[in-house]
Structure formats: structure tokens, C-alpha cells
């Protein structure tokens, strides 16, 4: 008997690096990057994070009072959106899933637009001209199907010899889907300028992360595709911004795509239509509140002398007022004309469909609904 194996290829030896600067209590675990030591930059990140949380609270309240449709809260995950918002340049292209409001606000999406979208109005995805968001993609509800669009967008960037970066984000559940794998598997083939961000918030509705995959981390799924892959503490806004900035730089410099798994926790239900008490223990949620990204970062700012109680009170007042103003503007927005459902179906409505638009225009009051 002789050993029939001809060779051994070592395939499964790797380390997944986890970056963290802030301990859960806000104390520093490592010397932070320059942006976190810059008073104005450090404050701006906190302002965006807390404004997002106040907006989120208002959106949930609107839903609970029957003024908004189903809404996907971002409570507990705000730091990732803040980091994305700061890591991307204006010309870069953001392809979001549906919880990255902070990044969208940073790129010029008005709060009112997010309410319009969840309130059932397509105009909430028009995103204003003259802002970076105008060339970004809209929220994407089907899980993971938007992620491979990044391949085409980034290929177009390469073809046009532009120095832009594409950032596509999704949740942990999305990494179970074929669409996601097809993107991850192919991105390095063309060495595309893409940053994939996976927000691992612990739960895909009722399914805990460990039941999505036998892989020990979500980051390691990128290693098989040849991507620079690592984890970051997604509730540490300093670490998340630092890791994303490095990934964006690599992409911009032709060093290829990255996969960043940001560890966070969904403190709210999956959406306002969900009741997480059905499937996860209250104690787990209570423990997760101890890792809250807002509280953690505020403690850092206070310790650094960048933030005071007066600052906090002023921001809460301003952020609450901004969310309130967005809510009022949303509620006061006149509905689209009924025939607007035909307006952007095609560049020009086919002649054979014109009668349908005419029928809607002329049919009078429309019944049903609420």
C-alpha cells in the first residue's frame, strides 16, 4: 500500500483580524487614528450618529401612530452608516441595503425621503441633484440581490478609467444567498474597486447568525474569493471608519476589493412588523445595550474633552426638531397623481399602454386602502 495523495494544498489556515479602538465603556483600547483626535471631525461623527438615532425614533413613532408604513429601524447599528458616510468620497457610489440611513444622510438624502420611501412613495428614492446620493443606488429590500450590481458598476468605473469606489452593504443573512456569493467570487477576477460591508447584527429576522452558516466568521467567506477580508467592531465608530477608509483607499489605489464584516447588534425588532420577543431573550438585548455605539462614542468624546452636557442637550434639541420637521414635511407632501405609476416605467410609455394611463387619469376617485 502506498499513499495515493499526490500533493497537499493548504487551504484553510487564516486569521480574521478584528479591529477595535473603543472598549464598550468608551475607554481607548488602542491609539486612535487622526480623525478621532480632531475635535471637529470627531464631533461631526457623533452628530450624525445621534441625529440618525433621533430620526429612527421618530420614524418608529410615526409607524406606531399609523402615519408610516412598515419601517426597518437602525437602532444599535448607527455607527456603521456613519463610518460609511465618512469613508466614501462624494464621487463614490453607494449601493445600500435598507438600514444605512446615516450614510445616506451624509450623502445628501433628506430624512424626509427615507420616510417617503417607507411611507409608500417612490419619490423617496429620487435623491436630490447636486448631492452625492444622486448617483447612489436606492434602498434595496430583496436580500443580497443588489450586491452583484456593484460588479457592473465597478467594472464601468474601471472601463472609464475613473478613480471612484463602490461600496455595497448588506446584512449577515444576505451572505447565505447565491447572488452575494456570485459577487464575492467574481470581484477579484477583475480586481474591482469595491468595498463589501456585511453588517452582522446577530439576527436575520428570527435566525441567529450562527445558524446562517457553518463558517466561523462572515469575513472569511471573502477569503475564498481572494478579497482582503476582516472584521471590525461595528459598534466602534472609530474602528469602523478606520477600517472602511483603509478598504476604500485600497480600492481606489487599484489594490482590489475588500470584505468588511462589521459586528453589531440589532437592538430593535427586524422591522416595525416584527416582534423580536418571539425569538430572542430579553437578557441578550439588555446585554447588547451595554455595547451601544452611541453611548460608547459619547463617553470617548467626553473623555477627550470634545463634548459637554450642553452640547448633548443642544444636539438632542436640534436633532429632534430636524426629525420632527422631516416628519411634518413627509406628512404634508401631496400624493403623486394616480397616473404617476406610469411615469417612469419606460423612458417613453409604449403606445399600447397609453390607454391604461388615460383610464387611471379619468376614472375618478380611487377606493380601497386606508
Amino acid at each position, binding site marked *: 500500500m502506498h499513499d495515493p495523495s499526490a500533493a497537499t494544498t493548504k487551504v484553510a489556515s487564516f486569521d480574521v483580524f478584528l479591529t477595535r479602538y473603543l472598549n464598550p465603556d468608551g475607554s481607548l483600547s488602542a491609539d486612535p487614528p487622526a480623525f478621532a483626535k480632531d475635535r471637529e471631525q470627531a464631533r461631526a461623527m457623533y452628530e450624525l450618529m445621534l441625529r440618525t438615532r433621533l430620526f429612527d425614533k421618530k420614524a418608529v413613532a410615526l409607524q406606531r401612530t399609523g402615519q408610516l408604513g412598515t419601517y426597518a429601524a437602525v437602532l444599535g447599528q448607527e455607527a456603521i452608516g456613519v463610518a460609511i458616510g465618512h469613508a466614501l468620497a462624494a464621487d463614490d457610489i453607494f449601493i445600500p441595503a435598507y438600514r444605512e440611513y446615516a450614510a445616506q444622510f451624509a450623502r445628501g438624502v433628506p430624512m424626509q425621503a427615507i420616510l417617503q420611501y417607507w411611507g409608500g412613495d417612490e419619490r423617496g428614492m*429620487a435623491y436630490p441633484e447636486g448631492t452625492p446620493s444622486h448617483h447612489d443606488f436606492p434602498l434595496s429590500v430583496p436580500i443580497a*440581490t443588489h450586491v452583484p450590481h456593484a460588479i457592473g458598476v465597478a467594472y464601468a468605473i474601471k472601463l472609464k478609467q475613473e478613480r471612484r469606489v463602490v461600496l455595497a452593504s448588506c446584512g449577515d443573512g444576505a451572505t447565505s444567498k447565491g447572488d452575494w456569493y456570485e459577487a464575492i467570487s467574481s470581484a477579484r477576477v477583475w480586481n474591482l474597486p469595491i468595498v463589501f460591508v456585511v453588517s452582522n447584527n446577530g439576527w436575520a429576522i428570527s435566525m441567529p447568525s450562527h445558524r446562517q452558516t457553518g463558517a466561523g466568521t462572515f469575513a472569511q467567506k471573502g477569503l475564498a474569493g481572494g478579497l482582503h477580508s476582516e472584521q471590525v467592531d461595528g459598534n466602534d465608530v472609530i474602528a469602523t471608519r478606520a477600517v472602511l477608509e483603509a478598504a476604500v483607499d485600497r480600492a481606489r489605489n487599484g489594490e482590489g476589493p475588500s470584505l468588511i464584516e462589521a459586528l453589531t447588534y440589532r437592538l430593535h425588532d427586524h422591522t416595525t412588523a416584527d416582534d423580536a420577543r418571539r425569538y430572542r431573550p430579553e437578557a441578550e438585548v439588555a446585554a447588547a445595550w451595554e455595547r451601544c455605539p452611541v453611548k460608547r462614542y459619547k463617553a470617548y468624546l467626553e473623555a477627550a474633552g470634545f463634548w459637554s452636557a450642553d452640547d448633548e442637550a443642544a444636539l438632542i434639541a436640534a436633532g429632534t426638531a430636524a426629525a420632527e420637521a422631516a416628519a411634518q414635511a413627509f406628512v404634508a407632501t401631496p400624493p403623486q397623481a394616480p397616473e404617476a405609476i406610469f411615469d417612469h416605467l419606460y423612458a417613453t410609455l409604449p403606445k399600447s399602454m397609453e390607454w391604461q394611463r388615460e383610464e387611471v387619469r379619468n376614472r375618478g376617485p380611487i377606493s380601497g386602502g386606508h
Partner: protein
Amino acid sequence: MADLTLIEAINLALASEMRRDPSMVVLGEDIGRNGGVFRATLGLLDEFGADRVIDTPLAETLVAAMAIGLSTQGIRAVAEIQFSGFMYPCVDQVVNHATRYRNRTRGRLSCPMVIRAPNGGGIHAPEHHSESLETTFAHMPGLRVVAPSSPARAYGLLLAAIRDPDPVIFLEPTRLYRLFKQPVDDSGEALPLDTCFIDRSGADITLVSWGAMMHDTRIAADQLADEGISAEIIDVATIKPLDLDTILESVAKTGRCVIISESARAGGWASEIAAGLAEHGLLSLFAPVMRVAGYDTPMPLAKQERVYIPDVHRILHEVRKVFELAPK
């Protein structure tokens, strides 16, 4: 003007448009060095280079999704799926994104892209290589579905599909790829979309078809002519949006109609046309509208595919029923 097969006309249209529009790319599996499994992209790699003739990994969802991403950035993306039965992984991308980005963003993003695929059976291919998907795609709002029936129409309609500002599914008649040649002028001129073509004028009955079934329909019309029956043939060409007006005008003249389609009968596009005739053309009809279609089975494997695909005999059988009910 050269005599070309249908697949050569496709190849000519792709090359011609890539010369005219430097923003156009083609992408798909084995389309580069191999020139595509049917050779539709033969020579393109050498002329336009690997940046614009993109050999993709073996991932059909990716091919559709990549075309979406490219097209949103002003790149005219023409994707090839090797066989229609492998288009199903594209469906999610087409129905949830390609057809919706314009609508969802109120015109901010759009997807001027084409997905080309051979469609239908008749070449003794393995399982899953011979399906007819026009009805599947035609039901999706915001899409164009185009099915050429000759080399010249393949050339002109493909140019139109590529230049169209919205997504187009371009279903090529597999068994006509090399069946006959026709003079094709590389004029760079597109044929109109959203319009049926009067393939042959006639007075007694309207035969409506598209794609590969047009070939059998033309043979059936020849036989009817020998019997003294003058059949008008309409090549639907753009399946969706449907130009019902041209069909109605024809039926107003002939009073009789048979619709010939390879895709399965129940809920098929022939049914959609028949419903349109029932709503808007009933009073011109001397007899019921009849459908000749694939049976409501999967496309059988090769030994039985001719059982499934409508043939001249089945077309003539339905035509004769019409004339029994409403003699000339």
C-alpha cells in the same frame, strides 16, 4: 449586402454597434476567445479587446446583475445567456431590478441593457437547452421582449434593442440560427420596436406568430396558397409591448385568426393576443380565434421535442377548423 445566416446577422449587428458606440460592451460565458457557444460573438474579442468583450465567471445571476450595474453607469451592456433554460437565475435580477430602477428612482437610474439568449427547441440539444421563455418575460412590467424571425430582422431588431433606453430580452430562434441565409445590409439602421411586421399580405386568414415558429407558419401559408387560401402572416417581433393594432387591422380584413406559439399554451402569449382579439376584434371575426402552442408540459428531451413543438400539420389542422366553421 451579404447573404447571412441569422447567427451571422446577430454577430454583424453586435460588431457594427460596437464600432458605432464605444460605450457598448458584451458580456457572458465563453463569449470571448470561444466566440460564444453559437459563435454569436465570433471575432469581437480580437477587434474590441477583453475590456469590452467580457468573459464572465459561470454565474448567470451575475451576468444579469453585472449588466444592470454597467447600464446604470452609461455603458450599453449586451449580455448573452448560453441557453434560454439557464435564464431563470436572471429572472430575479430582471423583475426586481432591471425593470424597476427607473421606476423606483423616478427616472434617476435606468438600465439600457439587453439580455440575448437562444430560444426554443428543435436542435436536439440536452435537457434545459430548448425552452421558450417569451411568455415568462412578457409578463414582467417595464420590460421589452423581442423575438426576431429572420436574419434581416435579427440584425435590425438587435440594433434597436441595444439602442433602446430600457431593458430588452432578446430571444433568438435557435433552430433558425443556421437554417437559411438572407441578404443583410450592414446599414446600421435599426428596425422599429413595439411594431408587428406584416410578413406576407393575404385576405382570408391571419396567421400570427414570432420567432422560430414563423418558419413553420410561412410553410403552412405556402401550402394554403396552393389550396387557394390567402393567408396574411404577422410577425409579432416585439412580444411586449404588444402591437395589437396591427393584428386587429389584419383580422378586420380577414375575419379569421390562428396564433402560433412554441411556448406552453396555458396563460401563454398566444392567449394574451387571443384575449385582445376577443375584447377589440370580436365583431370582425367569422370564427373563433384558435391557438397552436406548445403543450402544457416541460419541453421534452430531444427524442420527443417534435411532439411538443407545433408543426405545419398542427397549424393547418387549426386553420381547417376555422374554415369549417366559417367557409370562405
